[in-house]
């Protein structure tokens, strides 16, 4: 099929736009490979002699591996906690007394509308009086709690599409509710759980305000907080900041490229259900 002039024009426009959209990422990668001299003399030209000296220094100075470990730890723990608890709440709404379940559901749904800043200060004070600030556990509990309303909304919506006959049949077979949940319901929830995990991973891995409040201790800092602390320490020393930013961006982009279709589908379906 011959492409029309109009299509060609659209293509040209969109490639120009794609180039503009990718410029920030190009800028940081390109600059991170320049020597001090090249960076100050020709900050925006294409790199002439590639050097990894800044990367070597940054890897030695910034607590990169520790921070990555912390990020993995809190992301995995928080997601596990949030998923398990919200699936259980949703199951109790689905399989329990209908009127009671609806009341619980309404309470949680109404709280989705509450802007996150409302409880920010009392929550911080509560956490510090419980000695939960600067602990992994504190961050995970608080972050998981904040995600429960939305997750319950997703799960209850999904469970509503499952016929209760399956559940009643399981009851007649003498299958206990616990086995019903583990053997039948959880596997049925897999697709929506995948969506939830994608949304949660993006949110928690990239979270800044949460770690800023609850994981300040430099031995517990996440990757994002490490970047923040590092940039504050080396104000405007781009030769040090750019390589660090590239190192922090890489895992995000690598996971994105590997799981692209799932992530895009997850975002779209999570949004269309939300």
């Amino acid at each position, binding site marked *: 099929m011959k492409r029309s002039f109009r*299509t060609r024009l659209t293509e040209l426009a*969109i*490639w120009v*736009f794609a180039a503009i*959209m*990718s*410029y*920030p*990422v190009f*800028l*940081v990668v390109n600059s991170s490979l320049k020597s001090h001299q090249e960076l100050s003399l020709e900050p*925006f030209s294409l790199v002439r002699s590639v050097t990894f000296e800044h990367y070597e220094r940054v890897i030695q100075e910034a607590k990169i591996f520790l921070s990555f470990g912390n990020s993995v730890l809190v992301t995995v723990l928080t997601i596990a906690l949030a998923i398990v*608890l*919200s699936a259980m*709440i949703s199951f109790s*709404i689905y*399989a*329990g*007394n*209908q009127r009671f379940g609806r009341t619980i559901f309404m309470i949680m749904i109404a*709280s989705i*509308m509450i*802007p*996150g*800043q*409302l*409880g*920010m*200060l*009392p*929550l911080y*004070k*509560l956490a510090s009086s419980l000695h939960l600030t600067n602990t992994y556990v504190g961050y995970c*509990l608080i972050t998981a*709690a*904040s995600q*429960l*309303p939305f997750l319950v909304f997703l799960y209850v919506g999904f469970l509503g599409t499952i016929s209760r006959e399956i559940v009643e049949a399981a009851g007649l077979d003498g299958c206990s*509710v616990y086995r019903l949940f583990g053997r039948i319901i959880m596997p049925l929830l897999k697709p929506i759980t995948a969506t939830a995990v994608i949304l949660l991973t*993006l949110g928690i*891995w*990239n979270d*800044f305000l949460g770690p800023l*409040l609850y994981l300040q201790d430099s031995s517990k800092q996440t990757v994002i907080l490490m*970047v*923040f602390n590092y*940039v504050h320490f080396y104000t405007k020393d*781009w030769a040090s900041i750019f390589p660090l*930013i590239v190192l*922090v*961006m890489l895992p995000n982009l690598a*996971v*994105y*490229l590997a799981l692209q279709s799932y*992530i*895009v589908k997850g*975002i779209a379906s999570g*949004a*269309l259900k*939300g």
Partner: protein
Amino acid sequence: MLLKKEKRLPFYAVFLLPGFLLFLLFFMYPNLSSFYYSLTNWNGLSAPKYIGFSNYSYLLSDDKFFPALFHTLRYALIVTLGLNALGLVLALALDSGIRFRNVLRTVFFAPAVLSMLVVSYIWIRIFDPDGSLNTFLRFLGLDGLTHLWLGDPATALYSITAVNIWQFAGKSMVIFLANLQTIPIELSEAAELDGATKWQRFVHVTFPLLAPSVTITTVLTAIDSMKVFDYVYAMTEGGPIESTTTITYFLYMQGLKAGQVGYASAGAVINFFVVAAIAIAMLGFLRRREGRMQ
């Protein structure tokens, strides 16, 4: 109910209680107690003392709070409009039968997986007085257009909205694309047979059927951008001259850095009512519009 009476209690104790308690303790309680703390002079350390509505009357004359509220609303409005418009245009362009659409989709969505903080630092380098944007303008001979993008109160907030729109345009594009795929092609073809032009088909057939994704993009963006904090903290620290101080940044500084928890809580409560009023109005409008268009 599937369970006999005597089994209900253990059932709820196992399935409902752990999660619901966590929700009550770390979500409901802090939110509700904000209302109480807003009536106290709590500094976060000593015992809170009830002072009636004094915090609210002080807030009325605070030269930072209401500006912060308005900055946040203006910010949210621009970002919401920008993301709807850009997301729609990109989705239509990618849906128009061009080549390499998957590559383009990958490129456009990529910024959305990055951290807002990291993105902010890259953009500082672009907006710098000697950054790439001004360098590029000088290269084009447009010296008159160069600007202290983040250093001038007139442009700082808009510069931050640009970063937000850049980062999440791909996300709203993906939502619009998913929506476009649910529209049966026969509808547009039927309109074409009836002699409708391309533009008429878009206005009368495609766009009305995209109402759900307009609703979603608007609601999600409005919620997220009213909370904006990362960009502001990293790029401008609320300045210059408070021109980019948003609500979350105000609460963080006033409540946690300056230790005026009671006072900041009153600000959080006012913000809650403003956001709730906007949310209700917006949802009502979008629902009615969706209903009318379908």
